[in-house]
């Protein structure tokens, strides 16, 4: 059935047809049927750009593969189908005292998507990426009759190529994940308002040693003496308290406005208000895990605020040595452009290695922010930012990307050829076609 389907950023637009699969035993025949035209596994559509869109326009949707296969709640080891979302896993894990060892900023991604993009979260400096906690997974390829089990011991090349492999090495049928024990589902947090980029670096230095989770909101419009100001927020799982699944009611953006609601005026207003909402000094609080990790999940379809043209997220990571000066340059370029969004996030990444070949994080600092889509975005601001990232030895994040050049991609991810060699010939995304074949 054809559906108007876009990625999370609603850009680029490329019509896609969804072919859902609800049962593991129906996966092999469906993949065989789609193989002739080519396809791509698709989970819950939270990738921003074109990495979740099939070059053929025919997607194999795994979201309905939402069963657990087995769970050892003594050891926190769960084997679940690829379409299970992090929210669904948390709902069964939290009451038993377990939590995701790594979670990105939305709980609406599937396990398959989390693996294929090797996602990371606010505790990257402690626990690395999602792929580090995957014990094994089953990979179905169009050139094999039965799914292959992959781990560091079995099919290790496919294991490494599939973690961060953008869903190109096969369709992930199930994932076995080692969860992390928690005593409480509540988070002890501290927020600190800071006035400059330099302060971000010293706060990060200090809090990364004592806190599992650290992240900063940056006021991307601030210039001159207040450039790089923001709010630093850190947290640890509370040592005692309830183990409760947070099922708070959600708001929704009911329709897509014709133009973006995120403009210079609204952004200025937002950013000033948010910055000044936080009093100077350090403020400790305790709250549920949900608003701490997933503030945006409480507004369904928030991507609609950018209007029909959609938006692009720019997420880069800059290696430690060059981080402070490159980030200053990047923030200055963004502030000068007057564009950007309220959602600007800066985070120190650690040196915990990923088993994946094409993992995004590196020791250094990552910055992510959204821009309403417009014609001059890529040639203008993104061009200048790419130059800074390139010169500083950093890289961009494929899961968020709709613009990076093939030259840049191949330089950022030299292991791409190993992934290409192991790619399932039936699977191809618009992203992969753009950065490796164009």
């Amino acid at each position, binding site marked *: *059935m054809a559906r108007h389907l876009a990625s999370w950023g609603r850009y680029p637009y490329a019509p896609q047809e969804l072919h*859902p699969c*609800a*049962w*593991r*035993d129906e996966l092999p025949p469906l993949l065989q049927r789609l193989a002739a035209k080519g396809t791509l596994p698709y989970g819950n559509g939270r990738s921003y750009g074109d990495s979740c869109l099939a070059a053929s326009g025919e997607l194999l949707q795994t979201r*309905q593969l939402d*069963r*657990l*296969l*087995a*769970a050892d709640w003594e050891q926190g080891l*769960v*084997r*679940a189908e690829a379409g299970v979302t992090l929210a669904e896993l948390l709902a*069964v894990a939290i*009451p038993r005292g377990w939590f995701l060892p790594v979670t990105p900023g939305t709980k609406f991604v599937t396990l398959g998507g989390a693996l294929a993009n090797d996602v990371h979260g606010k505790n990257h400096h402690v626990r690395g990426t999602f792929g580090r906690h995957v014990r094994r997974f089953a990979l179905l390829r169009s050139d094999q009759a039965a799914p292959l089990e992959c781990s560091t011991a079995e099919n290790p090349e496919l294991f490494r190529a599939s973690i961060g492999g953008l869903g190109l090495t096969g369709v992930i049928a199930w994932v076995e994940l080692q969860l992390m024990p928690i005593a409480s589902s509540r988070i002890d947090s501290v927020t600190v308002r800071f006035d400059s980029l330099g302060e971000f670096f010293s706060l990060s230095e200090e809090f990364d040693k004592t806190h599992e989770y650290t992240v900063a909101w940056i006021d991307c419009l601030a210039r001159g003496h207040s450039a790089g100001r923001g709010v630093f927020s850190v947290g640890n799982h509370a040592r005692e308290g309830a183990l409760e699944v947070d099922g708070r009611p959600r708001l929704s953006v009911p329709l897509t406005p014709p133009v973006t609601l995120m403009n210079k005026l609204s952004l200025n207003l937002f950013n000033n208000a948010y910055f000044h909402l936080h009093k100077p000094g350090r403020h400790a609080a305790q709250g549920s895990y949900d608003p701490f990790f997933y503030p945006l999940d409480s507004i369904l379809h928030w991507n609609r605020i950018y209007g029909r043209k959609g938006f692009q997220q720019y997420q880069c990571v800059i290696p430690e040595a060059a981080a402070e000066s490159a980030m200053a340059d990047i923030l200055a370029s963004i502030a000068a452009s007057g564009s950007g969004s309220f959602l600007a996030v800066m985070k120190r990444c650690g040196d915990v290695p990923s088993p994946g070949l094409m993992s995004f994080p590196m020791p250094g600092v990552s910055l992510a922010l959204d821009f309403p889509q417009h014609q001059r975005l890529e040639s203008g601001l993104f061009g200048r930012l790419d130059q800074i990232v390139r010169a500083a030895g950093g890289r961009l994040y494929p899961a968020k990307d709709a613009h990076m050049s093939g030259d840049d991609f191949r330089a950022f991810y030299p292991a791409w050829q190993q992934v290409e060699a192991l790619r399932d010939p039936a699977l191809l995304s618009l992203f992969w076609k753009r950065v490796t074949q164009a």
Partner: protein
Amino acid sequence: MKNILIVGASSAIATACARQWASERARFFLVARNEEKLGQVADDLRARGASEVQTYALDMNDLQAHEAMLASAVASLGSLDISLIAHGTLPDQAACQQDVELALREFSSNGLSVIALLTRLANRLEQQRSGSITVISSVAGDRGRPSNYLYGTAKAAVTTFCEGLRARLFKVGVHVLTIKPGFVDTPMTQGLPLPKALVATPERVAGDIVRAVEKKKDSIYTPAFWAGIMLIIKSIPRPIFNRINL
């Protein structure tokens, strides 16, 4: 600990109900046609906390085999606290109009097999003098509409049957609940051009069902707004109804 029989256990609505009961450590006896899929559902429920899960592969159109299945369910669970009857198909109305055999087969899957099963199950529960039977009927049974009146006829038969059964079993303390779901986003409705705003998730429908079982409701629409929609559809005067294609 609840003892739960589910017939049509691989359906999306049944699975979503079972997951809620599994988190309360229920014991299950699951019946469905496909053994492979039953196994996948059983593993899921075990991992989610079910105390025990037995499976039984059976095509419900094999009416003579119902008795052996029920005997096996009772032997395995002891008492039947909750029975959820959720098996069924979504017939292709146009095809059923051209093919009598097909029409009768679909009527059997959605109507006769349910009536046959309920007859046997009711007698067992009448002896047990406790328990609750929940039957998935449909809003389609409220009025015959040109787009799916074969399905609607079968569901109307089930709804009426349940109404009589409810009044009979009420006297011995057995609860009968009729569920009338509207459009639900399941593999069964995949590919149908349904109005998006009216399509509910199986999880939402399951939440309504589990609550209705607890509160011993007689009959519910799920989501609840379907009561209003069906009231309107039922009140359309026949001269107009005949001229539109609902």
